[in-house]
């Protein structure tokens, strides 16, 4: 796995430098990226973050109607506590800050510590954890699930809610409800490599696929010979629909997301089947997304995310937003 880079140590900082150079709506200071205009006074702030290597996640979703700031660490390693503190400060518009990020042990420790630190500065914070990966734990253990691509729905919905002037408790509740309504499952076809690492994050045979693998190579549900796109899509959709949600409305949005190397051609082949399956189940698809939204660098594979929409979520999903990688 070749990389166009200068040195593993400079990978993340040079990537952030390029990101903000290409997108003047973003600025960065160290490992924190925020809106060029800074925090908007009177709006609840939303911060996210985690390990680098998942672009457009996290930093690409900073913008109007989405996130206010992100803290990123090295590739696949959490942001430092200081970066988390800094991100929260940057996002603070004096109405409190929601920490909205994926459920990973290291990230949680750092954001929690940061939360306590900023509280001493008088900033009120709350936490909502992305827990959409249905392959990472059973439904009964929902809070142990990892957060993967589905979190971008929570960004969009909570971000739109915050723009309405809602208070911290409301934004937090809306974000939590969005996470609770989102489900994701992924398949991996080839690994990626952490810059500077001696070998790939995992090994997989030239004709194998792994169902349910996580975005850092966390083991999935099964590994077997590659199957047809329709067979793979069928199983993924079946698993997503079998996972219980509180009150399904019959309206969903769906995200068919490349983990990196899998091209748009294959995403559309899969989306075609997903759309047909959901239709057959009587579900209406609203604002589907197909593309590179949450990646693991050059990993091949894709994930399918489903979010069940109530009237409020559907409205918030349709609200205007503008960041380098998503615009409504």
């Amino acid at each position, binding site marked *: 796995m070749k990389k166009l880079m200068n040195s593993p140590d400079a990978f993340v900082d040079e990537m952030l430098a390029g990101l903000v150079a290409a997108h003047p709506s973003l600025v960065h200071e160290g490992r924190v990226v925020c809106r060029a205009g800074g925090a908007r006074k009177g709006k609840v702030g939303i911060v996210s973050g985690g390990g680098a290597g998942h672009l457009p996640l996290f930093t690409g979703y900073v913008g109007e109607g989405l996130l206010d700031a992100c803290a990123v660490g090295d590739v696949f390693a959490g942001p*430092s506590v200081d970066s988390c503190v800094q991100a929260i400060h940057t996002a603070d518009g004096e109405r409190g800050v929601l920490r909205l990020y994926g459920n990973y042990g290291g990230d949680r*420790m750092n954001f929690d510590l940061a939360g306590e630190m900023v509280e001493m500065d008088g900033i009120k914070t709350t936490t909502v954890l992305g827990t959409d990966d249905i392959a990472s734990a059973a439904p009964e253990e929902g809070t142990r699930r990892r957060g993967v691509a589905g979190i971008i729905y929570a960004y969009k919905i909570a971000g739109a809610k915050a723009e309405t002037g809602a208070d911290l408790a409301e934004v937090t509740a809306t974000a939590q409800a969005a996470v609770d309504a989102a489900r994701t499952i992924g398949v991996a076809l080839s690994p990626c490599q952490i810059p500077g690492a001696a070998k790939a994050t995992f090994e997989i045979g030239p004709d194998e696929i792994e169902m349910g693998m996580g975005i850092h190579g966390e083991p999935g549900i099964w590994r077997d010979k590659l199957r047809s796109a329709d067979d793979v899509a069928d199983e993924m959709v079946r698993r997503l629909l079998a996972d219980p949600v509180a009150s399904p409305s019959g309206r969903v949005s769906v995200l068919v997301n490349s983990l990196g190397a899998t091209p748009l051609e294959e995403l559309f082949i899969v989306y075609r089947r997903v759309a047909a399956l959901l239709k057959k189940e009587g579900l209406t698809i609203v604002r589907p997304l197909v593309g590179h939204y949450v990646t693991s660098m050059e990993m091949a594979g894709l994930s399918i995310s489903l979010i069940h929409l109530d009237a409020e979520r559907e409205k918030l999903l349709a609200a205007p937003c503008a960041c380098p990688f998503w615009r409504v």
Partner: protein
Amino acid sequence: MSITANTLRHAALRARDAAALAQDELNAADGRMGDGDTGVMLRRLFEAIAAAIPARENDIGLVFQACAKACASGTGSSLGTLVTVAMMTLAKATKGRGEIGWDELGGLLASVRDQMMARGGAKLGDKTIVDIIDAVAVAVMPCRTREEVVAAARKEARDTLDAYRDRPNKLGRARMFGDKTVGLDDPGMLAFSRLLAAVAA
């Protein structure tokens, strides 16, 4: 003789040198069940700590607080954050103190262990750095002098590594490797034992 800010300054320098020496060994240990970065992370972290320790401060709590600050900006790795937690815990517990008795060390380590568990969610027996801190905390609890602490701690650290080697890792990245971790040292435990050996030399 008791523990003073000067004791910490000397310890920090020894820890920094030990971390540099152990870098490759720890990377290799982590490479077998994780992402192979424990050594490099720890070297950088203790370089930052050694550089951040105030030269003339006598308040032990403030010395630890400076260490905590250095850690907080240095790393986002799990172990790095746990070291930050340890420093913050010690800072809070020793704020305003100019010296600490060697008999207090067991209690301090126990609260470090508790805070790490509260933050990181590890349980005793998961085969993490928490287990070795727990074992050493218990072992030095009855000790009254530096000599007693050093002897008990070094022996207990070795014994704990040996005792856990043939058990599987149950937490974090290493958990994914399941029974393949049997026969291997946990990199966090190994790191603690190397630092301890240097500081308690």
